[in-house]
């Protein structure tokens, strides 16, 4: 626990992705099993310890400290775990448990045993360990390092490919003994053949110079505005995964239920509108994050998966085959699936760039946000590889940005965090590119406010800095260069057009991309 608490402290003060990576990689190398595995689970958000609620922590400290002194302290510090860690008045002699032992104790807690056990543990720890314990126990560990960064640290430490780690990740469980053994070269690669695993998505680059593209080598499809998803069925076990590898089966049970053969499909989740069009994105977004959905929601917003690629045909890995071959097989497979839940994303015919641009300019459905151009011979490779897939967005004046700061609004909104500062990437740092305070619905505002409160990393008066984890799609009228902002850019009339819970922050747009939109 001592080493893990030190790691958390150091991560909290480290700036930049590389510094955090180095700290995590160093710790994973220094620490033994199973502690490093539990640490990795905690950093990737996989640790689920349900017994300790913040109210219990609060009750513990209120029994120890004068209520006025507690309130003044909490007001000043602003974080319950830190306040309790600093205020805890007892110091007992005794061993500080290891991280593994701590997790074991926390997992075995019941509501009635929790107070006494926690009290005794807190008394044996120093303030930084108490902070780590409370964060761990209440599931509020936030170090501004996403799950992917922690897995990258694992890959760096052991010199393995992060895409392989991503792929294995969903088939192994904390404390990941076999994963560490494999990483250290002391064991075989975990055998996950028979499991319904997440496979990392192949991603597209924005198309920057259409005229330089050898059009004959590419096939075109509509780029649909839904949620990218992967449907997996293996030995009868079924899963639906989102972009960042989260299991979203519970949010879209009708899709999962309709899978009736072994396969892995890549596609776009969409809502079926009237007359064959595509319906509201909001309805989809509402479902994300729900563990289950009611019958009414399923009836009112029928969901289907528009498939555009095939990764596994039965148990055969077809990712190495050319796109055209995969798509042929895909079309045949989709024809055999429940047509209410699956269809095939057809290719578009356009011989010239002009014809393609015309298609892009006047798409037949408002849910189309542009074109996808995919190299006909490309294998399905994880991540964003140069020269293979391109996205050519119709309305270039939207950008995916990462929420950085939130400020309380005025008047009717004074109790809400409603002014949002967002940024785009420059290398591994986020630079603020704009500020918006409308564009969202009341329900979305409520949701954003709650998100901000739960993901605060620092406070400056009315402003909260948040974990760099939430992607906002920002629409704007135009963008211009500006000396006022560090990014050198200023947006005109920016508004939050969509909350992109499905998109990992690391994949938000770059300052360079935005600079390319300056008119």
């Amino acid at each position, binding site marked *: 626990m001592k080493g893990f608490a030190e790691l958390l402290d150091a991560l*909290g*003060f*480290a*700036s930049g992705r590389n*510094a955090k990576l180095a700290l995590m990689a160093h710790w994973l190398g220094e620490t033994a099993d199973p502690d490093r595995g539990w640490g990795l689970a905690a950093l990737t958000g996989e640790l689920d310890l349900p017994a300790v609620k913040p109210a219990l922590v609060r009750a513990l400290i209120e029994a120890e*400290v*004068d209520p*006025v*002194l507690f309130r*003044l*302290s909490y007001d*000043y*510090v*602003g*974080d319950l775990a*830190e*306040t309790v860690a*600093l*205020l805890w008045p007892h110091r007992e002699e005794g061993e500080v448990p290891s991280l593994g032992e701590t997790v074991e104790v926390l997992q075995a807690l019941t509501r009635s045993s929790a107070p006494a056990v926690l009290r005794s543990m807190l008394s044996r720890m120093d303030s930084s360990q108490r902070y780590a314990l409370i964060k761990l126990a209440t599931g509020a560990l936030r170090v501004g390092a996403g799950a992917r960064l922690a897995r990258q640290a694992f890959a760096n430490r052991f010199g393995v490919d992060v895409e392989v780690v991503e792929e294995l990740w969903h088939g192994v469980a904390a404390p990941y003994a076999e994963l560490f053994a494999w990483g250290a070269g002391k064991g075989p690669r975990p055998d996950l053949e028979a499991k319904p695993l997440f496979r990392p998505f192949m991603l597209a680059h924005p198309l920057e110079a259409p005229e330089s593209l050898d059009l004959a080598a590419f096939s075109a499809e509509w780029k649909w505005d839904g949620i990218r998803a992967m449907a997996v069925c293996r030995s009868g076990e079924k899963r639906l995964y989102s972009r960042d590898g989260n299991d979203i089966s519970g949010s879209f049970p009708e899709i999962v239920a309709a899978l009736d053969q072994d396969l892995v499909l890549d596609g776009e989740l969409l809502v079926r509108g009237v007359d064959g069009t595509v319906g509201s994105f909001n309805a989809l977004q509402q479902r994300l994050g729900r563990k289950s959905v009611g019958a009414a929601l399923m009836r009112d917003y029928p969901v289907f998966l528009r498939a555009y690629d095939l990764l596994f045909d039965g148990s055969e890995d077809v990712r190495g085959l050319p796109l055209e071959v995969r798509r042929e097989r895909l079309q045949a497979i989709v024809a055999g699936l429940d047509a209410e839940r699956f269809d095939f994303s057809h290719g578009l015919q356009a011989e010239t760039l002009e014809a393609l641009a015309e298609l892009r300019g006047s798409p037949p459905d408002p849910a189309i946000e542009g074109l996808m151009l995919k190299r006909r011979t490309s294998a399905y490779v994880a991540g964003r590889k140069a020269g293979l897939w391109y996205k050519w967005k119709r309305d270039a004046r939207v950008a995916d940005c990462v929420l950085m700061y939130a400020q309380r609004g005025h008047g009717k909104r004074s109790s809400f965090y409603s002014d949002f500062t967002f940024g785009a990437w420059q290398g591994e740092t986020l630079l603020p590119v704009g500020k918006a305070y409308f564009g969202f619905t009341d329900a979305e505002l409520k949701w954003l406010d709650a998100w901000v409160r739960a993901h605060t*990393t*620092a*406070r*400056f008066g009315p402003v909260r800095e948040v974990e760099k984890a939430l992607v906002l799609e920002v629409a704007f009228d135009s963008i211009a260069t500006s000396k006022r902002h560090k990014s050198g850019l200023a947006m005109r009339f920016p508004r939050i057009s969509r909350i992109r819970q499905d998109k990992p922050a690391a994949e938000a747009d770059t300052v360079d991309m935005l600079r390319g939109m300056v008119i």
Partner: protein
Amino acid sequence: MVADRIGWLKAEPRGIYLPGADAWVDPSQPVARAIVTHGHSDHARGGHGMVWATAETLAITAARYGPQPGGMRLAYGEKVEIEGVGVSLHPAGHVLGSAQVRLERDGAVVVVSGDYKRAHDPTCAPFEVVPCDVFITEATFGLPVFVHPPAGAEIARALARLRASEGRCLLIGAYALGKAQRVIALLREGGWERPIYLHGAVEKLCALYQAHGVELGELRPVAGVKADALVGEVVIAPPSALQDRWSRRLPDPITAMASGWMMVRARARQRGVELPLVISDHAGWDELTRTLLEVRPREVWVTHGRDDALVHWCGLHQMKARALHLVGREDEDE
């Protein structure tokens, strides 16, 4: 009521005032007569007529504002009378020359603590408990979350980080008067024998400390030293220099900040440092409350800081207390 017997002293928003003597303690504007507790700029200002202070405080004031006429040097424990009020200075343990002011008239004793601390500091005389009827204290760290750890352990942590970091140097941000010299002395106590490199803004006061007999070991200006030669070394700079272009000359510095505020993560993050070091020259909560229990005054007056918590604590311990809300005493850059 104690206050009834000490009509000769008034707590004005601008400071503690002695009407009979027309003298102020730590006045925020130039006055005819001033008694100054220590050399920090929110306590010592230039331009007063007469100034009673320790020799060290007068020297510090002269170093900062140029020569000041009217300096009245007082040794610790030496008594003078200013228009019927007995005045003496006693060590406060805050910075070199820092003093509490003991004031006595008509059988009533008032002690103005100025800034003080009880923690170990090799660069100044330790705090002395002075019995009194009214104790006027600060409360910069007047919240129970501020129980500062032993400074030696923080220094050891910093040196361990430096030794574990190849190709880097340790850059410690420390307030130029008091904190910088204390950090250097603590580094020496922690076994750091190499020369310590100084930003220009801390050189003068380090020399002043050394001239007053404080051992700081070998100090060198950082100016003119090549980056390669600074790998593995310790550099001391004022906090404002940490994020400044100045620091780019250093080899991949581990930026540290020595301050009592580093106790709270959000405050430390605001500073943007990699290694917060909790080293305070102001009394933490445990030191404040311990001091009140040892001095056991009949009344406690709190000048500034987080006074509401300390006043509440006094109530819990049957001590009469009130907050003075003095102006111009913001949180000292600690």
